[in-house]
Protein backbone atom coordinates (compact mmCIF):
# COMPACT_ATOMS: atom_id res chain seq x y z
CA UNK A 1 0.00 0.00 0.00
CA UNK A 2 1.24 3.48 -0.77
CA UNK A 3 0.09 6.99 -0.07
CA UNK A 4 0.69 8.64 -3.41
CA UNK A 5 -2.86 9.94 -3.73
CA UNK A 6 -2.29 12.84 -1.33
CA UNK A 7 1.30 13.40 -2.33
CA UNK A 8 1.24 13.24 -6.10
CA UNK A 9 2.61 16.73 -6.72
CA UNK A 10 5.64 16.11 -4.49
CA UNK A 11 6.23 12.63 -5.87
CA UNK A 12 4.81 12.29 -9.40
CA UNK A 13 4.98 8.67 -10.49
CA UNK A 14 7.73 8.39 -13.10
CA UNK A 15 10.00 5.70 -14.42
CA UNK A 16 13.10 6.99 -12.71
CA UNK A 17 14.04 8.78 -9.50
CA UNK A 18 15.57 11.55 -11.59
CA UNK A 19 12.35 12.17 -13.50
CA UNK A 20 10.30 12.21 -10.30
CA UNK A 21 12.75 14.68 -8.78
CA UNK A 22 12.58 16.94 -11.82
CA UNK A 23 8.76 16.85 -12.01
CA UNK A 24 8.19 17.33 -8.27
CA UNK A 25 6.90 20.69 -7.08
CA UNK A 26 9.51 20.52 -4.32
CA UNK A 27 12.29 21.17 -6.85
CA UNK A 28 12.71 24.24 -9.07
CA UNK A 29 11.78 23.99 -12.76
CA UNK A 30 15.37 24.87 -13.62
CA UNK A 31 16.78 21.97 -11.58
CA UNK A 32 20.24 21.14 -12.95
CA UNK A 33 20.18 17.48 -11.96
CA UNK A 34 21.40 16.25 -15.36
CA UNK A 35 24.08 18.93 -15.34
CA UNK A 36 25.71 17.62 -12.14
CA UNK A 37 29.47 17.21 -12.66
CA UNK A 38 30.05 15.53 -9.27
CA UNK A 39 32.36 18.36 -8.26
CA UNK A 40 31.43 18.01 -4.59
CA UNK A 41 30.80 21.70 -3.88
CA UNK A 42 27.55 20.57 -2.25
CA UNK A 43 29.23 18.13 0.12
CA UNK A 44 31.99 20.62 0.89
CA UNK A 45 29.33 23.14 1.95
CA UNK A 46 27.10 20.72 3.83
CA UNK A 47 26.81 20.85 7.64
CA UNK A 48 25.41 17.31 7.71
CA UNK A 49 28.37 16.01 5.68
CA UNK A 50 30.70 17.65 8.18
CA UNK A 51 29.25 15.81 11.15
CA UNK A 52 27.52 12.69 9.71
CA UNK A 53 27.81 10.20 6.83
CA UNK A 54 25.45 12.20 4.65
CA UNK A 55 26.84 13.22 1.26
CA UNK A 56 24.73 15.28 -1.12
CA UNK A 57 27.16 14.51 -3.95
CA UNK A 58 26.67 10.76 -3.43
CA UNK A 59 22.93 11.24 -3.09
CA UNK A 60 22.74 12.97 -6.48
CA UNK A 61 24.88 10.23 -8.03
CA UNK A 62 22.53 7.54 -6.72
CA UNK A 63 19.50 9.40 -8.02
CA UNK A 64 21.10 9.67 -11.47
CA UNK A 65 21.87 5.93 -11.33
CA UNK A 66 18.23 5.27 -10.33
CA UNK A 67 19.40 3.46 -7.23
CA UNK A 68 16.11 3.14 -5.33
CA UNK A 69 17.86 1.78 -2.25
CA UNK A 70 18.63 5.43 -1.48
CA UNK A 71 15.05 5.70 -0.17
CA UNK A 72 15.93 3.31 2.62
CA UNK A 73 19.21 4.99 3.44
CA UNK A 74 19.06 6.53 6.92
CA UNK A 75 21.35 9.34 5.81
CA UNK A 76 18.61 11.07 3.77
CA UNK A 77 17.12 12.10 7.13
CA UNK A 78 20.29 13.97 8.11
CA UNK A 79 19.92 16.97 5.77
CA UNK A 80 19.35 20.28 7.61
CA UNK A 81 17.44 21.87 4.71
CA UNK A 82 19.86 24.81 5.00
CA UNK A 83 20.14 25.16 1.20
CA UNK A 84 23.92 25.73 1.27
CA UNK A 85 24.23 23.18 -1.57
CA UNK A 86 21.47 25.01 -3.45
CA UNK A 87 23.43 28.25 -3.21
CA UNK A 88 26.86 26.81 -4.00
CA UNK A 89 26.14 24.42 -6.87
CA UNK A 90 27.81 25.79 -10.01
CA UNK A 91 25.37 23.86 -12.23
CA UNK A 92 22.12 25.06 -10.66
CA UNK A 93 21.43 21.69 -9.15
CA UNK A 94 19.74 21.53 -5.76
CA UNK A 95 20.44 18.41 -3.68
CA UNK A 96 18.47 19.93 -0.77
CA UNK A 97 15.27 19.91 -2.80
CA UNK A 98 16.01 16.49 -4.31
CA UNK A 99 16.37 14.99 -0.83
CA UNK A 100 13.01 16.50 0.08
CA UNK A 101 11.48 14.51 -2.79
CA UNK A 102 13.29 11.36 -1.71
CA UNK A 103 11.98 11.71 1.82
CA UNK A 104 8.45 12.13 0.45
CA UNK A 105 8.91 9.02 -1.71
CA UNK A 106 10.12 7.12 1.36
CA UNK A 107 7.09 8.35 3.32
CA UNK A 108 4.80 7.07 0.55
CA UNK A 109 6.30 3.65 1.12
CA UNK A 110 5.89 3.87 4.88
CA UNK A 111 9.55 4.66 5.62
CA UNK A 112 10.40 7.27 8.27
CA UNK A 113 6.86 7.65 9.55
CA UNK A 114 8.03 7.46 13.15
CA UNK A 115 9.95 10.67 12.51
CA UNK A 116 6.84 12.37 11.18
CA UNK A 117 4.81 11.08 14.13
CA UNK A 118 6.92 13.35 16.33
CA UNK A 119 5.55 16.40 14.50
CA UNK A 120 2.15 15.14 13.37
CA UNK A 121 0.07 17.13 15.86
CA UNK A 122 1.16 20.34 14.14
CA UNK A 123 -1.53 19.67 11.49
CA UNK A 124 -4.51 19.60 13.84
CA UNK A 125 -3.09 22.55 15.79
CA UNK A 126 -2.82 24.55 12.57
CA UNK A 127 -6.39 23.64 11.59
CA UNK A 128 -7.67 24.67 15.01
CA UNK A 129 -5.58 27.77 15.71
CA UNK A 130 -4.20 28.97 12.39
CA UNK A 131 -0.70 28.82 13.91
CA UNK A 132 1.99 26.18 14.34
CA UNK A 133 3.78 25.23 17.52
CA UNK A 134 6.59 23.12 18.80
CA UNK A 135 4.92 19.69 19.08
CA UNK A 136 4.38 17.94 22.41
CA UNK A 137 7.42 15.63 22.28
CA UNK A 138 9.55 18.63 21.30
CA UNK A 139 8.24 20.65 24.22
CA UNK A 140 9.08 17.79 26.59
CA UNK A 141 12.61 17.57 25.19
CA UNK A 142 13.06 21.32 25.44
CA UNK A 143 11.79 21.30 29.02
CA UNK A 144 14.43 18.72 29.83
CA UNK A 145 17.13 20.69 28.00
CA UNK A 146 16.23 24.21 29.03
CA UNK A 147 14.91 23.64 32.51
CA UNK A 148 12.86 25.71 34.87
CA UNK A 149 13.59 29.15 33.40
CA UNK A 150 12.06 28.20 30.04
CA UNK A 151 9.10 26.45 31.63
CA UNK A 152 8.48 29.53 33.73
CA UNK A 153 8.73 31.81 30.69
CA UNK A 154 6.20 29.68 28.80
CA UNK A 155 3.89 29.92 31.81
CA UNK A 156 4.20 33.72 31.71
CA UNK A 157 4.00 34.04 27.93
CA UNK A 158 0.48 35.43 27.86
CA UNK A 159 1.19 38.21 30.35
CA UNK A 160 4.48 39.07 28.60
CA UNK A 161 2.67 39.31 25.26
CA UNK A 162 0.08 41.61 26.80
CA UNK A 163 2.88 43.76 28.28
CA UNK A 164 4.39 44.04 24.80
CA UNK A 165 1.05 45.19 23.38
CA UNK A 166 0.43 41.89 21.59
CA UNK A 167 -2.65 39.73 21.78
CA UNK A 168 -2.26 37.29 24.67
CA UNK A 169 -2.28 34.04 22.70
CA UNK A 170 -1.01 33.05 19.30
CA UNK A 171 -4.38 32.16 17.85
CA UNK A 172 -5.26 33.55 14.44
CA UNK A 173 -8.64 34.58 13.16
CA UNK A 174 -8.84 32.14 10.25
CA UNK A 175 -12.42 30.96 10.76
CA UNK A 176 -12.67 27.43 9.45
CA UNK A 177 -10.74 28.19 6.27
CA UNK A 178 -7.47 26.56 7.25
CA UNK A 179 -9.22 23.37 8.34
CA UNK A 180 -11.16 23.32 5.07
CA UNK A 181 -7.92 23.65 3.11
CA UNK A 182 -6.28 20.78 5.00
CA UNK A 183 -9.37 18.66 4.33
CA UNK A 184 -9.33 19.61 0.64
CA UNK A 185 -5.68 18.79 0.08
CA UNK A 186 -6.00 15.37 1.74
CA UNK A 187 -3.76 16.25 4.66
CA UNK A 188 -5.95 14.45 7.17
CA UNK A 189 -5.68 11.23 5.13
CA UNK A 190 -1.93 11.63 5.33
CA UNK A 191 -2.18 12.31 9.05
CA UNK A 192 -4.04 9.01 9.55
CA UNK A 193 -1.38 7.21 7.52
CA UNK A 194 1.38 8.67 9.69
CA UNK A 195 -0.41 7.98 12.97
CA UNK A 196 -1.02 4.37 11.92
CA UNK A 197 2.63 3.90 11.00
CA UNK A 198 1.88 3.16 7.33
CA UNK A 199 -0.73 0.55 8.12
CA UNK A 200 -3.27 3.31 7.92
CA UNK A 201 -6.93 2.97 7.32
CA UNK A 202 -7.42 5.28 4.40
CA UNK A 203 -10.95 4.03 3.91
CA UNK A 204 -12.39 7.53 3.68
CA UNK A 205 -11.56 7.23 0.00
CA UNK A 206 -12.86 3.70 -0.35
CA UNK A 207 -16.28 2.14 -0.56
CA UNK A 208 -16.31 -1.60 -1.02
CA UNK A 209 -12.81 -1.93 -2.32
CA UNK A 210 -9.85 -2.44 -0.05
CA UNK A 211 -7.66 0.58 0.70
CA UNK A 212 -4.85 -1.05 -1.26
CA UNK A 213 -6.95 -1.31 -4.40
CA UNK A 214 -8.27 2.20 -4.05
CA UNK A 215 -4.82 3.64 -3.54
CA UNK A 216 -3.38 1.88 -6.55
CA UNK A 217 -6.29 2.96 -8.71
CA UNK A 218 -6.10 6.50 -7.43
CA UNK A 219 -2.40 6.58 -8.10
CA UNK A 220 -2.75 5.29 -11.63
CA UNK A 221 -5.59 7.68 -12.47
CA UNK A 222 -4.36 10.80 -10.79
CA UNK A 223 -0.61 10.72 -10.83
CA UNK A 224 0.78 13.11 -13.43
CA UNK A 225 2.63 11.30 -16.17
CA UNK A 226 6.14 12.25 -17.03
CA UNK A 227 6.09 11.57 -20.74
CA UNK A 228 9.40 9.79 -20.65
Amino acid at each position, binding site marked *: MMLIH*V*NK*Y*DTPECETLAETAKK*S*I*RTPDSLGLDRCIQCGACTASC*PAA*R*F*TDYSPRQLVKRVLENDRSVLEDESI*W*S*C*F*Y*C*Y*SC*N*LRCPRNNSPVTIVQVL*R*QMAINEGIGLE*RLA*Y*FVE*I*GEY*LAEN*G*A*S*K*IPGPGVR*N*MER*DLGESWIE*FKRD*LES*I*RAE*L*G*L*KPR*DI*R*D*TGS*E*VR*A*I*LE*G*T*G*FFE*REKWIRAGGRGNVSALSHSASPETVNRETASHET*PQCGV
Partner: protein
Amino acid sequence: MKPIENVPDRKLLLFKSCMVSQEYPGIESATGYAFDRLGVDYFVNEEQSCCTGIGHYTDLFEGLTTAAIAARNFAVARRCGYPNITCLCSTCYAVNKEACELLNTNAEVREKVNSIFREQGMDDLVYEKGDMDPRSNFYHAVEVLLSKVDLIRENKQLDFSGVKAAAHHACHYYKVKYQDVVGNPENPQLIDDIAAACGADMVRWYEDRTLTCGMGFSQLHLNRNTSLQVTKAKLDSLKNAGVELMLHMCPNCHIQYDRYQPVIEKEFGVEYDTVHMNIGQFVALALGADPYEVCGFQTHSVPLEGFLERIGAL
Protein backbone atom coordinates in the same frame (compact mmCIF):
# COMPACT_ATOMS: atom_id res chain seq x y z
CA MET B 1 20.06 40.90 -7.00
CA LYS B 2 17.36 42.85 -5.19
CA PRO B 3 18.17 46.60 -5.26
CA ILE B 4 17.68 48.12 -1.81
CA GLU B 5 16.08 51.15 -3.49
CA ASN B 6 13.19 48.92 -4.57
CA VAL B 7 12.27 47.81 -1.06
CA PRO B 8 8.92 49.49 -0.32
CA ASP B 9 7.96 51.24 2.91
CA ARG B 10 4.25 51.29 2.18
CA LYS B 11 1.52 48.67 2.36
CA LEU B 12 3.63 46.14 4.23
CA LEU B 13 1.81 43.19 5.78
CA LEU B 14 4.01 42.43 8.79
CA PHE B 15 3.68 38.65 8.57
CA LYS B 16 3.14 37.04 11.95
CA SER B 17 5.60 34.28 12.78
CA CYS B 18 4.65 31.37 15.03
CA MET B 19 8.09 31.04 16.58
CA VAL B 20 8.37 34.80 17.13
CA SER B 21 4.94 34.82 18.77
CA GLN B 22 5.63 31.85 21.00
CA GLU B 23 9.33 32.21 21.81
CA TYR B 24 10.49 35.79 21.24
CA PRO B 25 7.39 38.01 20.97
CA GLY B 26 9.61 41.04 21.52
CA ILE B 27 10.86 40.67 17.95
CA GLU B 28 7.38 41.58 16.66
CA SER B 29 6.81 44.46 19.09
CA ALA B 30 10.33 45.82 18.59
CA THR B 31 10.09 45.69 14.80
CA GLY B 32 6.74 47.48 15.01
CA TYR B 33 8.31 50.11 17.28
CA ALA B 34 11.15 50.65 14.79
CA PHE B 35 8.77 50.76 11.80
CA ASP B 36 6.60 53.36 13.57
CA ARG B 37 9.59 55.61 14.16
CA LEU B 38 10.94 55.15 10.65
CA GLY B 39 7.67 56.09 8.95
CA VAL B 40 6.94 52.62 7.61
CA ASP B 41 3.32 51.90 6.70
CA TYR B 42 2.55 48.39 7.92
CA PHE B 43 -0.34 46.28 9.16
CA VAL B 44 -0.60 43.10 11.23
CA ASN B 45 -3.56 41.00 10.17
CA GLU B 46 -4.79 38.34 12.58
CA GLU B 47 -6.53 36.57 9.71
CA GLN B 48 -3.13 35.51 8.40
CA SER B 49 -2.21 31.94 9.28
CA CYS B 50 1.09 30.17 9.80
CA CYS B 51 3.01 29.72 6.52
CA THR B 52 3.26 25.93 7.28
CA GLY B 53 7.06 26.23 7.41
CA ILE B 54 7.65 24.02 10.43
CA GLY B 55 5.39 21.29 9.06
CA HIS B 56 6.66 21.71 5.50
CA TYR B 57 10.31 21.36 6.42
CA THR B 58 9.76 18.52 8.86
CA ASP B 59 8.28 16.73 5.81
CA LEU B 60 4.84 16.60 7.46
CA PHE B 61 3.00 18.83 4.98
CA GLU B 62 3.18 18.04 1.29
CA GLY B 63 3.68 20.84 -1.20
CA LEU B 64 0.03 21.15 -2.21
CA THR B 65 -1.03 22.00 1.35
CA THR B 66 1.77 24.54 1.65
CA ALA B 67 0.79 26.15 -1.67
CA ALA B 68 -2.91 26.30 -0.73
CA ILE B 69 -2.22 27.84 2.70
CA ALA B 70 0.07 30.38 1.01
CA ALA B 71 -2.61 31.25 -1.56
CA ARG B 72 -5.04 31.92 1.29
CA ASN B 73 -2.53 34.22 3.01
CA PHE B 74 -1.95 36.04 -0.28
CA ALA B 75 -5.72 36.65 -0.49
CA VAL B 76 -5.67 37.97 3.09
CA ALA B 77 -2.82 40.35 2.20
CA ARG B 78 -4.50 41.63 -0.96
CA ARG B 79 -7.94 41.93 0.68
CA CYS B 80 -6.68 44.27 3.43
CA GLY B 81 -4.73 46.39 0.97
CA TYR B 82 -1.29 45.42 2.34
CA PRO B 83 0.08 43.10 -0.36
CA ASN B 84 3.78 43.50 0.45
CA ILE B 85 4.34 40.49 2.69
CA THR B 86 7.18 41.35 5.09
CA CYS B 87 8.49 38.51 7.22
CA LEU B 88 10.16 38.33 10.61
CA CYS B 89 11.15 34.72 9.98
CA SER B 90 13.37 33.65 7.10
CA THR B 91 11.41 30.43 6.59
CA CYS B 92 8.10 32.31 6.25
CA TYR B 93 9.91 34.45 3.67
CA ALA B 94 11.19 31.48 1.64
CA VAL B 95 7.98 29.46 1.87
CA ASN B 96 5.81 32.34 0.71
CA LYS B 97 8.14 33.39 -2.08
CA GLU B 98 8.47 29.85 -3.39
CA ALA B 99 4.73 29.21 -3.16
CA CYS B 100 4.04 32.37 -5.13
CA GLU B 101 6.42 31.28 -7.87
CA LEU B 102 4.79 27.84 -7.97
CA LEU B 103 1.27 29.26 -8.13
CA ASN B 104 2.27 31.58 -10.97
CA THR B 105 4.12 28.99 -13.05
CA ASN B 106 2.32 25.69 -12.44
CA ALA B 107 -1.21 25.88 -13.85
CA GLU B 108 -2.09 22.39 -12.63
CA VAL B 109 -1.28 23.18 -9.00
CA ARG B 110 -2.97 26.58 -9.26
CA GLU B 111 -6.14 24.99 -10.63
CA LYS B 112 -6.08 22.28 -7.98
CA VAL B 113 -5.72 24.86 -5.20
CA ASN B 114 -8.51 26.95 -6.69
CA SER B 115 -10.77 23.93 -7.09
CA ILE B 116 -10.30 23.19 -3.36
CA PHE B 117 -11.23 26.79 -2.55
CA ARG B 118 -14.33 26.59 -4.77
CA GLU B 119 -15.43 23.21 -3.44
CA GLN B 120 -15.17 24.54 0.10
CA GLY B 121 -17.16 27.67 -0.74
CA MET B 122 -14.14 29.96 -0.40
CA ASP B 123 -14.25 31.54 -3.84
CA ASP B 124 -12.78 34.79 -2.53
CA LEU B 125 -9.49 32.99 -1.95
CA VAL B 126 -9.07 31.97 -5.61
CA TYR B 127 -5.57 32.80 -6.87
CA GLU B 128 -5.13 34.06 -10.43
CA LYS B 129 -1.75 33.92 -12.13
CA GLY B 130 0.20 37.07 -11.33
CA ASP B 131 -1.96 38.14 -8.38
CA MET B 132 1.31 38.35 -6.47
CA ASP B 133 4.84 38.79 -7.81
CA PRO B 134 7.52 36.62 -6.16
CA ARG B 135 10.09 39.39 -6.66
CA SER B 136 8.15 42.50 -5.67
CA ASN B 137 5.62 41.36 -3.06
CA PHE B 138 7.91 39.52 -0.60
CA TYR B 139 10.41 41.04 1.82
CA HIS B 140 12.18 40.32 5.04
CA ALA B 141 11.92 42.97 7.78
CA VAL B 142 15.71 43.34 7.74
CA GLU B 143 15.50 44.63 4.15
CA VAL B 144 13.03 47.31 5.22
CA LEU B 145 15.28 48.31 8.13
CA LEU B 146 18.31 48.50 5.83
CA SER B 147 16.37 50.71 3.42
CA LYS B 148 15.98 53.14 6.35
CA VAL B 149 19.57 52.93 7.55
CA ASP B 150 20.23 56.67 7.14
CA LEU B 151 17.19 57.51 9.26
CA ILE B 152 18.30 54.99 11.87
CA ARG B 153 21.75 56.60 11.98
CA GLU B 154 20.26 60.10 12.30
CA ASN B 155 17.75 59.17 14.99
CA LYS B 156 19.66 56.74 17.13
CA GLN B 157 19.56 57.50 20.84
CA LEU B 158 21.92 54.76 21.89
CA ASP B 159 25.37 54.31 20.45
CA PHE B 160 26.91 50.87 20.15
CA SER B 161 30.49 52.11 19.71
CA GLY B 162 32.95 49.69 21.18
CA VAL B 163 30.58 46.75 20.91
CA LYS B 164 32.13 43.92 18.94
CA ALA B 165 29.25 42.29 17.08
CA ALA B 166 28.66 39.78 14.29
CA ALA B 167 25.73 38.83 12.11
CA HIS B 168 24.05 35.53 11.42
CA HIS B 169 22.14 35.95 8.17
CA ALA B 170 19.48 33.26 8.05
CA CYS B 171 19.88 30.49 5.46
CA HIS B 172 16.29 30.63 4.24
CA TYR B 173 16.70 34.31 3.44
CA TYR B 174 19.80 34.12 1.26
CA LYS B 175 20.32 30.49 0.19
CA VAL B 176 16.86 29.50 -1.09
CA LYS B 177 16.09 32.22 -3.64
CA TYR B 178 19.69 33.34 -3.80
CA GLN B 179 19.33 35.36 -6.98
CA ASP B 180 16.87 37.68 -5.26
CA VAL B 181 18.84 38.84 -2.23
CA VAL B 182 20.02 42.32 -1.22
CA GLY B 183 23.77 42.15 -1.84
CA ASN B 184 25.99 39.15 -2.46
CA PRO B 185 24.47 35.88 -1.17
CA GLU B 186 27.97 34.51 -0.58
CA ASN B 187 28.63 37.40 1.78
CA PRO B 188 25.40 39.01 3.00
CA GLN B 189 25.93 42.27 4.86
CA LEU B 190 22.42 43.54 5.61
CA ILE B 191 22.60 43.15 9.38
CA ASP B 192 26.25 44.33 9.44
CA ASP B 193 25.42 47.56 7.62
CA ILE B 194 22.50 48.39 9.94
CA ALA B 195 24.46 47.63 13.10
CA ALA B 196 27.51 49.56 11.86
CA ALA B 197 25.28 52.60 11.35
CA CYS B 198 24.53 52.39 15.09
CA GLY B 199 28.22 52.39 15.88
CA ALA B 200 28.81 48.67 16.39
CA ASP B 201 32.21 47.27 15.50
CA MET B 202 31.20 44.51 13.08
CA VAL B 203 33.29 41.38 12.57
CA ARG B 204 32.36 40.99 8.93
CA TRP B 205 34.11 37.68 8.39
CA TYR B 206 34.54 34.95 10.95
CA GLU B 207 35.05 31.23 10.46
CA ASP B 208 31.84 29.45 9.49
CA ARG B 209 30.04 32.72 8.90
CA THR B 210 27.70 31.08 6.40
CA LEU B 211 27.19 27.88 8.40
CA THR B 212 23.57 27.09 9.28
CA CYS B 213 22.44 27.57 12.88
CA GLY B 214 21.98 23.82 13.25
CA MET B 215 18.27 23.80 14.01
CA GLY B 216 17.55 21.99 10.74
CA PHE B 217 13.81 21.67 11.54
CA SER B 218 13.67 18.01 12.53
CA GLN B 219 17.39 17.86 13.32
CA LEU B 220 17.23 19.63 16.69
CA HIS B 221 14.58 17.18 17.78
CA LEU B 222 15.60 13.92 16.10
CA ASN B 223 19.37 14.26 15.60
CA ARG B 224 20.04 16.47 18.59
CA ASN B 225 23.74 15.76 19.04
CA THR B 226 24.59 16.64 15.43
CA SER B 227 22.38 19.68 15.61
CA LEU B 228 24.20 21.01 18.67
CA GLN B 229 27.62 20.24 17.17
CA VAL B 230 26.77 22.50 14.23
CA THR B 231 25.60 25.25 16.57
CA LYS B 232 28.71 24.87 18.68
CA ALA B 233 30.98 25.24 15.64
CA LYS B 234 29.68 28.74 15.04
CA LEU B 235 29.63 29.74 18.70
CA ASP B 236 33.28 28.65 18.90
CA SER B 237 34.12 30.82 15.89
CA LEU B 238 32.40 33.81 17.47
CA LYS B 239 34.30 33.24 20.69
CA ASN B 240 37.59 33.06 18.81
CA ALA B 241 36.72 36.32 17.07
CA GLY B 242 35.91 37.99 20.41
CA VAL B 243 32.29 38.67 19.47
CA GLU B 244 30.08 39.77 22.36
CA LEU B 245 26.83 40.42 20.47
CA MET B 246 25.38 38.11 17.83
CA LEU B 247 22.60 39.61 15.71
CA HIS B 248 19.89 37.44 14.16
CA MET B 249 17.07 37.72 11.65
CA CYS B 250 15.12 34.50 12.20
CA PRO B 251 13.46 33.13 15.34
CA ASN B 252 14.54 29.57 14.54
CA CYS B 253 18.22 30.55 14.55
CA HIS B 254 17.55 32.66 17.62
CA ILE B 255 16.17 29.64 19.51
CA GLN B 256 19.16 27.58 18.47
CA TYR B 257 21.76 30.08 19.63
CA ASP B 258 20.07 31.77 22.57
CA ARG B 259 18.13 28.88 24.09
CA TYR B 260 20.79 26.25 23.40
CA GLN B 261 23.97 28.20 24.17
CA PRO B 262 23.66 27.37 27.91
CA VAL B 263 22.89 23.73 27.02
CA ILE B 264 26.01 23.50 24.83
CA GLU B 265 28.10 25.12 27.57
CA LYS B 266 26.95 22.47 30.01
CA GLU B 267 27.16 19.44 27.73
CA PHE B 268 30.41 20.30 25.96
CA GLY B 269 32.16 21.91 28.93
CA VAL B 270 32.68 25.26 27.20
CA GLU B 271 31.89 28.87 28.12
CA TYR B 272 30.65 31.65 25.91
CA ASP B 273 30.30 35.37 26.59
CA THR B 274 28.14 36.08 23.54
CA VAL B 275 24.65 37.52 23.94
CA HIS B 276 21.92 37.40 21.31
CA MET B 277 19.27 39.63 19.84
CA ASN B 278 17.27 40.06 16.67
CA ILE B 279 18.15 42.98 14.41
CA GLY B 280 14.64 44.41 14.97
CA GLN B 281 15.26 44.42 18.73
CA PHE B 282 18.68 46.00 18.13
CA VAL B 283 17.27 48.83 16.00
CA ALA B 284 14.41 49.45 18.44
CA LEU B 285 16.94 49.63 21.28
CA ALA B 286 19.05 52.07 19.28
CA LEU B 287 15.98 54.23 18.67
CA GLY B 288 15.23 54.41 22.39
CA ALA B 289 12.92 51.45 23.07
CA ASP B 290 12.56 49.94 26.51
CA PRO B 291 14.51 46.66 26.73
CA TYR B 292 11.64 44.85 28.41
CA GLU B 293 8.39 46.64 27.52
CA VAL B 294 9.24 46.80 23.81
CA CYS B 295 12.17 44.48 23.06
CA GLY B 296 10.97 41.68 25.34
CA PHE B 297 14.45 40.64 26.47
CA GLN B 298 12.89 38.92 29.49
CA THR B 299 12.02 36.03 27.14
CA HIS B 300 15.69 35.34 26.33
CA SER B 301 17.67 32.48 27.82
CA VAL B 302 21.11 34.11 27.75
CA PRO B 303 20.77 37.08 30.14
CA LEU B 304 21.37 40.47 28.54
CA GLU B 305 21.48 42.57 31.72
CA GLY B 306 25.26 42.89 31.91
CA PHE B 307 25.49 43.88 28.27
CA LEU B 308 22.59 46.35 28.49
CA GLU B 309 24.07 48.01 31.56
CA ARG B 310 27.43 48.39 29.91
CA ILE B 311 25.99 50.13 26.83
CA GLY B 312 23.81 52.36 28.99
CA ALA B 313 20.46 50.84 28.05
CA LEU B 314 19.64 50.03 31.67
